[in-house]
């Protein structure tokens, strides 16, 4: 993405609530898409920098959601601090997962998925802490900041937008550093990078933690936005499949791709396809994904850029 495009995005982001703020429906679609976009960003970061495809990001999402819900409901921690703690909780969960870094490719992807299942079952069975399968209801919503009530749609939008932007900047900073280059090299040539002095295990571990933190924050935000949580929902496989679809669709090698992908896929699906075919609309979505991979395997952004040049 060119520089001017990056800057042009900012006012566009700001304009969204002004133009659409009154329409609860559209706003809630956008917020839901941004949540998925945030997880997609975190997934793409792990894939791009860590060289790891994960099928278990729902683990981080769910842990983040639960940690934040529990500390705010049971300990009365303020919501924003709770969201940060949610991210940290997910990060800690990823520390438990560090042994899987020994695994490669699909082995890693599935090992993470196994953790997601395990966390889900823990959330179901550890009733005293999590409320079991009944879940946690009445999770406090987003607070009032500077006199503005963030618990509305516009407030939620601004919050998730801030989170996503912050994460995107962090992602970009990592990628541009030498660590980013070394990480990129590691994917298919781990031995080659090690013998020149790269501590690849450490770097990969750090990326896993960063990615977990991001997904955890997304989960925590969502818990306070939906105000309700239960294991099947928090650890639902959709929290990883949708982000993967969004990331690859938008272009998982770019930073904006996953978020743009999430918005496009989600909004197209809900606003257009669903109106056309109310119950079978995912059929169209599936077709769209297939077409996208065949005609522009590097993602939507690449497609747009190619059009730009042509």
């Amino acid at each position, binding site marked *: 993405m060119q520089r001017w495009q990056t800057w042009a995005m900012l006012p566009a982001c700001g304009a969204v609530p002004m133009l659409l703020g009154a329409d609860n429906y559209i706003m809630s679609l956008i917020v839901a898409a941004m949540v998925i976009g945030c997880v997609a960003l975190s997934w793409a970061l792990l894939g791009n920098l860590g060289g790891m495809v994960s099928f278990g990001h729902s683990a981080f999402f769910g842990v983040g959601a639960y940690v934040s819900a529990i500390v705010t409901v049971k300990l009365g921690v303020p919501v924003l601090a709770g969201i940060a703690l949610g991210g940290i909780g997910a990060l800690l969960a990823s520390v438990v997962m560090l042994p899987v870094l020994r695994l490669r490719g699909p082995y890693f992807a599935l090992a993470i998925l196994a953790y997601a299942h395990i966390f889900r079952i823990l959330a179901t069975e550890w009733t005293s802490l999590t409320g079991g399968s009944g879940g946690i209801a009445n999770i406090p919503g987003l607070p009032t900041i500077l006199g503005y009530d963030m618990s509305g749609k516009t407030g939620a939008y601004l919050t998730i937008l801030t989170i996503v932007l912050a994460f995107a900047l962090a992602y970009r900073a990592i990628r541009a550093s030498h660590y980013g280059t070394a990480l990129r090299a590691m994917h298919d040539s781990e031995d*080659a990078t090690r013998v020149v002095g790269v501590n690849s295990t450490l770097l990969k571990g750090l990326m896993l933690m960063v990615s977990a933190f991001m997904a955890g924050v997304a989960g925590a935000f969502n818990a306070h936005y939906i105000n309700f949580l239960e294991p099947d929902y928090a650890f639902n496989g959709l929290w990883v499949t949708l982000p993967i679809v969004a990331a690859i669709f938008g272009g998982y090698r770019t930073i904006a791709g996953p978020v743009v992908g999430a918005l496009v896929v989600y909004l197209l699906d809900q606003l257009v396809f669903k109106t056309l075919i109310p119950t079978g609309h995912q059929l169209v979505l599936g077709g769209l994904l297939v077409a996208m991979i065949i005609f522009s395997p590097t993602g939507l952004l690449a497609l747009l850029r190619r059009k730009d040049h042509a």
Partner: protein
Amino acid sequence: MLELNNLSVRFGGLTAVNAVTLAVGTHDVVGLVGPNGAGKTTLFNAISGLVRPTGGTIRFDRQDVIRTPIYRRARLGIGRTFQIPQPMHELTVRENLVVAQRFGTGKIDDDKIDEILEFTSLADKAHRDAATELALTELKALEVAKALATTPKLLLLDEVLAGLETSGKRRFMGMLKEMHERFGVGIVIIEHDIETINSLCQRVVVLNFGQLIADGTPEAVFNDPEVIRSYTGAAHA
């Protein structure tokens, strides 16, 4: 600088390296030769940490490194090349060197990188994708360049000259000699071309079936009947 004591590596029932004892000093250029499958590459792998020895010790700079992870051995100054080149994927030739330098030495020195590129005749290919756009010999040059970028004290070269044309070989050897003299880098080089070994090394060690069967000047070693029988087939030097 490097001391191997009774080093062994086994793969299942096969002993690829068998109780090798060997010392390499700071100023040595040692030729490592032996029949195919004798265990030369495996020995390099053990020294750089890619395979875990089943017995024996490895000391580098008087420090026991047997449990030291690969990346730290690299930072200590063990540089190596791969017989089957392993460029860092998804990076350009230049980025390969940047990563090697940054992580091998902790600092970045662009001039040094240019110098190495020039040295290895890769300057005009600096922006090619290393993994997909180089010919085999260029990949071998890149192997050496990467190792140099980490500013090693000991350089383990695994058949980097194989496949090079005569003039290229000469240039490369000149470069190695210069490096050796200028930076005082110790070199162990695996090579099947005996002329090359003769002109480059003051000392040759021979491995056969994982065992060290000869160690001495090229002249002495290549006239050793055991070596002739198992490796060269005729007297050289």
